């Protein structure tokens, strides 16, 4: 796959169709992958990589590195295409300046899971099919991929690409998932238990803004939390209220727009399951207003800028939900 | 092209012609009818109640069996068609029914019985095509004035059966035209023959049936066609002055395989 992508990227560069390529590049470790812009065939040959660690959603990166005057090639995994479609709907990227290639994804590996198994001194990690081979200073170990796969990939919602100019590999399908199970578990708890749970999670927040920076729905020119004029600007979570406030408002701002790509939780250095906040909204929207998947097609009307005359009343919450 | 075929019990006994002419015609048209193994009687009427499941299971089995064969399921008898198609619709639209059937049959009812059900008429219209059929006719029934008798079961409920406009259908008339005959349009063609009340209230059934053939005759029909053994029985019992035959007989005749 990686070689096919490289070949195609170089072709498009050589033909002048595109002048830049957005993909992933490997850093010091095999598992340390970051998005990158490539402008030459040499750079692609040297650094371009696509493997089971290429988790980062390139849509947000594309937004940050877009240029209007030249065409950029970007490789998008199925879940990345949802984010991209949502950004196109919201006019946040210039679709005309992008050449999108949809690529398949078979689930990404979460290195933390390997580390959590006690592996240290990791030299390299390679995956072939269902096997993941970890080569360390102290010996090798092979894992079954599903055991070390990222949580978000275990609950993958779709292998289908919602936006692209061409596809590499076969088109997949929307999947049935149990991604709302954890939300349901939380809903089943008593309010006190939920409060304890979230206090436990959110009190770890260090306001590093990693979630916001990675989130493809957080593309505001200026975030309300950074804008002293907004009345809610915060630099640090000085109080438990502000920990709550930041995450409630962030979830609310992306409600109906969040595609559930899971980047927020992936990048959180404190391992706060932030996606559970977004999934709560997605699950509520599905339950109250009918099934809705953000980023499914360009031009969709997001649920919170929409209504029907027969919508449920807010007291549905007090009455115990759906 | 192969279709799974559900004949139904009456086609094995009192309405053998309906079955036999269909098989011959299908062959002439290059269609293979693969009779379902171990099919069970559909029950004759669809039980409309939402809480009744037992009477619907034979239809579910037929649907599953066809799905396993990987074919669309074709029916001939209007009653079987009505029962099977409505059962399928009930599973699709009624969560409770889907759940109970799944439980009972140890299957995923919605997935496993997701078989397309087509009536032989629909097969002629949509798969063969009436224009194609016309080309294959060797004995055109020129000059014959034929009244299509739809009855209820092919047409209603219109939203479920999606067979044709239930108040002003045209599929059988198009069929008649394809065979070279002239269709007779009369208002009673989608009225009920009296159905199963014939068993207890034969007089009432006869009254209904009489009104139908009289209407057809009044508009000049020299023959009536039907897809339903019970309709034919009721019409004949009511001493129809117009001959009533199964549509497959006419088809076989036109195709020269009678």
């Amino acid at each position, binding site marked *: 796959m990686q070689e096919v992508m490289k070949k195609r990227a170089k072709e498009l560069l050589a033909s002048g169709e595109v002048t830049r390529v957005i993909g992933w590049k490997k850093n010091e470790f095999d598992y340390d992958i970051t998005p990158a812009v490539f402008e030459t065939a040499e750079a692609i040959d040297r650094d371009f990589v696509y493997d089971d660690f290429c988790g980062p959603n390139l849509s947000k990166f594309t937004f940050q590195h877009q240029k*209007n005057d030249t065409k950029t090639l970007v490789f998008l995994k199925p879940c990345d295409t949802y984010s991209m479609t949502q950004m196109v*709907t*919201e*006019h*946040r990227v210039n679709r005309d300046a992008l050449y999108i290639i949809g690529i398949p994804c078979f689930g990404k590996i979460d290195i933390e899971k390997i580390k959590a198994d006690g592996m240290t001194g990791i030299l390299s990690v390679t995956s072939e099919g269902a096997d993941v081979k970890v080569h360390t200073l102290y010996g090798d170990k092979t894992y079954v991929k599903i055991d070390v796969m990222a949580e978000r990939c275990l609950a993958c919602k779709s292998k289908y690409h919602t936006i692209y100019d061409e596809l590499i590999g076969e088109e997949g399908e929307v999947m049935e998932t149990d991604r709302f199970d954890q939300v349901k578990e939380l809903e089943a708890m008593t309010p006190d238990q939920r409060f304890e749970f979230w206090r436990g999670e959110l009190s770890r927040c260090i306001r590093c803004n990693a979630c916001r920076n990675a989130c493809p729905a957080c*593309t*505001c*020119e*200026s*975030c*309300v939390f950074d*804008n002293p*004029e*907004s*009345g809610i600007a915060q630099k640090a979570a000085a109080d438990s209220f502000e920990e709550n406030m930041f995450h409630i408002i962030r979830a609310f*701002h*992306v409600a109906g727009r969040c595609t559930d790509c899971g980047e927020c939780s992936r990048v959180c250095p404190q391992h706060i399951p932030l996606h559970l906040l977004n999934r709560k909204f997605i699950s509520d929207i599905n339950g109250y207003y009918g099934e809705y998947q953000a980023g499914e097609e360009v031009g969709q*009307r*997001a649920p*919170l*800028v*929409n209504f029907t005359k027969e919508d449920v009343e807010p007291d549905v919450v007090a009455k115990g939900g759906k | 092209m192969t279709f799974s075929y559900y004949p139904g019990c009456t086609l094995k006994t009192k309405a053998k012609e309906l079955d036999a002419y269909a098989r011959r015609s299908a062959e002439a048209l290059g269609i293979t009818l693969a009779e379902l193994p171990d099919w069970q009687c559909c029950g004759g009427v669809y039980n409309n109640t939402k809480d009744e499941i037992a009477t619907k299971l034979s239809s579910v089995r037929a649907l599953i069996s066809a799905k396993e064969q990987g074919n669309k399921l074709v029916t001939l008898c209007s009653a079987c068609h009505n029962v099977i198609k409505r059962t399928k619709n009930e599973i699709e639209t009624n969560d409770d029914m889907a759940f109970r059937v799944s439980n009972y049959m140890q299957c995923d009812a919605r997935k496993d019985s997701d078989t397309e059900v087509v009536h032989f008429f629909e097969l002629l219209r949509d798969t063969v095509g009436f224009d194609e059929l016309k080309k294959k006719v060797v004995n055109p029934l020129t000059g014959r004035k034929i009244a299509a008798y739809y009855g209820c079961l092919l047409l209603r409920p219109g939203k479920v059966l999606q067979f044709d*406009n239930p*108040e*002003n259908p045209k599929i059988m008339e198009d069929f008649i035209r394809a065979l070279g005959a002239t269709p007779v*349009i009369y*208002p*009673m063609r989608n009225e009920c023959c009296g159905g199963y009340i014939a068993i207890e209230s034969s007089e009432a059934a006869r009254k209904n049936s009489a009104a139908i053939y009289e*209407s057809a005759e*009044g*508009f*000049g029909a020299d023959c009536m066609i039907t897809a339903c053994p019970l309709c034919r029985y009721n019409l004949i019992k009511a001493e129809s002055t117009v001959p009533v035959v199964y549509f497959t007989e006419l088809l076989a005749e036109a195709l020269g395989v009678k």
Partner: protein
Amino acid sequence: MQKIGVFVCHCGTNIAGTVDVKAVAEALGKEPGVVFSTEYQYMCSEAGQNLIKDAIKNYGLTGIVVCSCSPRMHEATFRKTAAAAGLNSYMVEIANIREQCSWIHKDVKVATEKAIVLGRTAIAKVALNTPLTASETPVVKRALVIGGGIAGIQTALDIADAGYEVDLVEKEPTIGGKMAQIDKTFPTLDCAACILTPKMVDCAQNEKIHIYAYSEVESVKGFVGNFNVTIKKKARFVDETKCTGCGICTEKCPMKKTPNLFNLGLDNRSAIYIPFAQAIPKIATIDADYCNMLKNGKCGVCSKVCAAGAIDYKQQDQYIEQQYGAIVVATGFNPIKLDNYSEFAYNESPDVVTSLELERLMNAAGPNGGTLLRPSDKTHPHTIVFVQCVGSRDTTDCGKPYCSKICCMYTAKHAMLIRDKYPDTEVYVFYMDVRTPGKNFDEFYRRAVEDYGVHYIKGMVGKVMPQPDGKLLVRGSDLLTDEQLKIEADMVVLAAAIEPDKTARPLATMLTASMDTNDFFTEAHPKLRPVESPTAGIFLSGVCQGPKDIPETVAQASAAAAKVIGLLAKPALKSNPCTAHSDENLCNGCSSCERVCPYGAISYVDKEFRMPDRTTKVRRVASVNPAVCQGCGACTVACPSGAMDLSGFSNKQIMAEVDAICR
């Protein structure tokens, strides 16, 4: 530096009876920014207002808070007071210490404490107020009326009467609409043409009215007071300035087998035609679908016989651009197609007709010259069955869920006219309910039953069966006798539901006017603003807003005209300055605000921004048209970046109020 004045009103004992007004004035005087605080018996009196004016001048106040009755009562008063003293009228806030304090609390301590909180909340808000000026936009003194039926005609006449220019756009070759096709009108039974055609002539002769017949609205831009409209004049292939309407061409045209649409296809006309004798404008039109010259280049008879030389086979569609201050929608209705109701055999038998077709069959200018004959064999019908509610009150997807409102009355009219003219004809009316609310309406219906012997049957027809002998066997239920009736009829008349004209929806999109699920235009308020669309400057006239009969339509038409005149009479439009505005530096251009705006006030522009690194970047940003924005604030919450804010109710102001209450 803020200099705020506080004025606490006693309202006689209304406030002072429960609130210690002196304590309130004293406490509020200590609030930051307050430089003057006092109380007075009646702040709204002239003396009270003078007190405020003097304080503004003497203390150089930058904002005032009046603690008094509800702002719904005297906010406007105190704003004027402020303005008279040279303070911007939006630098005034009211603390409602009467309706929301003194009147609901009995304990003086409790009420006084609350009044202080309400006062400091208003102070916190006014400290953040900014001077606002109502913007003014000029009004184009010209109105557009879309639709030339009785609704459009009446509206146009009334507006023109007030001295304003009106353009009347009609998609058919003549104005007149449905009313021109109707024979008689209920409940007076006067002839529709006799009362309509004089109005049509008035339109044609009125200098202020310009009729664009055979024309359609192509595009609408702009907003209230300044709409920019393109009108498409469809090619008639006849030069309007030359045609005299003599009609020779229509007589000589060899293409006589063209369906006569004015008679609903019940008879034929020629390919070049004038819809009816009293058509306005009386100009011939060539039906391009049937004209042999236009189709095959062979014929040219009309051109040869036209003495005026008006025929122009090469005529093209013309586009006219015009500015308007107001637009009236009067697009009217049509009976629904009856394809979903084959049980009534409408498509099978020519003797099953709609009520509108019956109007033509009974009309002296209709296909039979006014003698009622069955369409199939032109014989006199002896039994006629009317079926009510065909497609009305139908919640399946076959018909319309609403009551079409006019059918009960016109059917009573038809039944009565038939019984009057042909006493040997039996008339049956199958009804679900007879609905006759209206002046002299029920009396009219009762006359049909009592004086004319029309058989009204409570029940519905289940099926109409054409018989070999040409009769129509009607099977229906009589719910009161609990019988199933089988009636051998010669004709069946179906009261088909009415629906808005198909052109209404695309027009609504152009106008950004809202519509309901049945494609009727929505009114700004169902009770209090029934002839206005929520979109400013768009008015509604006639059935486009909902089913209604002629008297109601005319009343609404005049009401719409009055609203238009009120608008056009203004030298300029002063808009509420409490409108939304977007901070371009924060705006993402994401369209969220646009989607929730009920007025279409938000548009987007590409704007160039200078970046810190001296490069420039073009971004899509929202722009609010203050003349259209009504200030609801829906956009401010939809905006994720906080770029959108509302003057007079800004985020900061509201949060300051929250803080002051919770302090």
